[in-house]
């Protein structure tokens, strides 16, 4: 439900529980007497520039939750009458905790959210729409801003972002005389060449299963295809773009360039370091793991590249958003804190503390990003990255994509049938509005 947690089996168990609890919560959420059915909360007016006062409660997940107090101290310095109460929430179960808190009316002022939760929670009317003039939408990466928009209304703001790029072994590529691929054709020949240099598998792709939609969707986006049509109401999962995407994705398995196994946490890095694996798609956290486990000399053996593409070189984007609850006790100060967190200087400071990437484009001009050989690639990729639509039913729709993709890569069904199933199931699930 949240972004890249796919390589940990633990998540799947947690998710099963989350889905059950979530469906119970959607019912309760609609029964809160506010009409239900859609995000009908209304903004309570603009936020002024006076210093924030009072106590603001904020929930943040995992590492971010642990480190946020450090950053918040600076806000408290600038606004002496405000206290920021940070509660760190484990990623496991965070979704359930927020859902239950909404149902019980015991929400904090602000919560951090996995980008793909915004649609589901936003539709219950639990969040206040982002006040007019609080932030400038144009300051954020496009793909990232859209994660906060549910049915045309923005709820909160993107806080930090993540995206996927292509990791590859430079030593194998040099030995084969190939360069980082820019197009689909080049990608195929690139991984074939890496395989010629001793890699048993040129590229690692999940053959299906939980969250594999994150791997397949970019291939459709790269040809101008999408999950919903531009009006945001009709699914377009049986369009030619998806057909091409599925066929191309499956070709890696058919030609033996990708192994039909899902590499769980640990295996992937080890195979990449040992040279059994030539390339894979992943997010920024993997550079740290590779440098840590591969040793200092491994730094010269791999590089990152913007993903190869067709019409565009679009990648997947996720990250963490911030939303203010409709029932926030200290709403004004909450929005002021959110606004402060998205200022470019704060975003750079937050990167220095928590090593997560800024959602505001201007923050990327800092040297920390432009001079870093890895981060600069992510910065470039973020200019062309997309998120799935923020619809309440996304968890269900994406599960259908995961399942049909697996059938195709296993050769159990044809691409045409898989897409037809995806489209008809998605239509019967609906967008949830």
């Amino acid at each position: 439900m949240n972004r890249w947690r796919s390589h940990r089996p633990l998540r799947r168990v947690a998710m099963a529980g989350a889905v059950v609890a979530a469906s119970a919560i959607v019912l309760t959420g609609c029964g809160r007497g506010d009409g239900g059915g859609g995000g009908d909360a209304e903004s309570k007016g603009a936020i002024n520039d006076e210093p924030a006062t009072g106590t603001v409660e904020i929930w943040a997940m995992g590492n971010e939750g642990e480190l946020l107090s450090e950053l918040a101290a600076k806000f408290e310095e600038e606004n002496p009458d405000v206290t920021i109460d940070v509660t760190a929430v484990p990623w496991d179960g965070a979704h359930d905790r927020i859902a239950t808190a909404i149902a019980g009316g015991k929400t904090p002022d602000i919560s951090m959210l996995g980008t793909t939760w915004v649609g589901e929670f936003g539709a219950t009317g639990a969040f206040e729409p982002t006040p007019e003039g609080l932030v400038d939408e144009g300051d954020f990466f496009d793909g990232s801003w859209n994660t906060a928009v549910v049915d045309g209304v923005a709820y909160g703001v993107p806080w930090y972002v993540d995206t996927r790029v292509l990791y590859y072994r430079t030593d194998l590529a040099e030995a084969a005389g190939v360069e980082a691929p820019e197009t689909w054709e080049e990608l195929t020949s690139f991984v074939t060449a890496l395989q010629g240099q001793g890699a048993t598998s040129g590229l690692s792709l999940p053959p299906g299963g939980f969250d594999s939609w994150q791997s397949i969707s970019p291939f459709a986006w790269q040809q101008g295809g999408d999950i919903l049509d531009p009006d945001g109401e009709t699914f377009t999962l049986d369009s030619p773009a998806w057909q091409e995407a599925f066929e191309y994705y499956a070709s890696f398995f058919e030609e033996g360039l990708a192994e039909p196994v899902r590499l769980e946490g640990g295996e992937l890095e080890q195979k990449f370091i040992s040279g059994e694996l030539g390339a894979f798609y992943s997010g920024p956290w993997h550079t740290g793991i590779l440098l840590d486990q591969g040793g200092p000399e491994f730094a010269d053996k791999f590089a990152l590249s913007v993903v190869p593409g067709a019409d565009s070189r679009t990648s997947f984007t996720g990250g963490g958003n911030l939303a203010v609850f409709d029932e926030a006790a200290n709403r004004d100060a909450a929005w002021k804190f959110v606004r402060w967190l998205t200022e470019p200087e704060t975003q750079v400071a937050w990167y220095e503390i928590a090593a997560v990437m800024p959602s505001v484009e201007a923050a990327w001009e800092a040297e920390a990003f432009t001079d870093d050989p890895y981060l600069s690639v992510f910065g470039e990729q973020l200019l062309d990255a997309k998120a799935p639509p923020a619809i309440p039913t996304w968890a269900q729709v994406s599960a259908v994509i995961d399942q049909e993709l697996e059938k195709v890569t296993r050769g159990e069904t044809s691409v045409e049938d898989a897409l037809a199933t995806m489209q008809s199931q998605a239509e019967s699930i609906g967008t949830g509005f």
Partner: protein
Amino acid sequence: MTRTRTRWWLYVVLVLGLVAMVMPFVWMILGSFKTTAEIRQYPTNFWPIDPTLDNYAQLFGRLDFTAFFTNSIIVAFFVTAGNIVFSSMVGYALAKLEFRGKKLLFAVVLSTLMVPGVVTFVPLFVLTANLGLVNSYPGLILPFLITPLGVFLMRQFMLSLPDDIIEAARIDGAGEWRIFLRVIMPLCGPAVATLTILTFLGSWNNFLWPLVVATTEDKYTLPVALALYSVGQNAAQYGLMMAGAVVVVVPVLLIFVVLQRYFVQGIALTGIK
């Protein structure tokens, strides 16, 4: 001769079973002395190459582990005590006292056993929230003070006690309270031991309820705190996780070792586990 041979095979089977059961624990304990990088290494090593106490140092140093530990102990203690008191009282009434609607009452208790926890989870939270108990010890403890399973277990055990002793006590002039406390309860050792272990374990390992009810970190219990600090969004710190698991398992093991003799007896006598 035949007998020895049977024994020999029996031991082989038992040892295989034992190894299968114990291996994960051994792995966990060894893993707690490895770095996360070493655990993730492939092929894996059984013994730590470079044993380290870093995980434990981090557990007790960086994290406020004693606070979480205390919270867990407080919650588990009251939940277990509540279950021993209330489940045996209800169990006694259902087993030995005659009153109208007894069968119906027992059927109601049993039917609540059939309702999965996820169904009642949200209503229970709303109730707790309306009572103003969110983020308090009572909020963590109250919903679990009595469980249908505990009532069932105590009733089944008490059914096996002869009515004669109760009658004898009545003839001797003992009141109902005195019978319950002085005659029945002392005979319920095995059942109480079983109930203690099951409830303590359930409360000790409970994750979702404390996660939702404890809204600030100072009320977090061990499982919630462990999930928070050992599982990041994209990578888990396995070493820290295993060290935490070792610490979490120790009290449970202690309780089990102390009560083990009664526990087995309790399962045999009540036919449930």
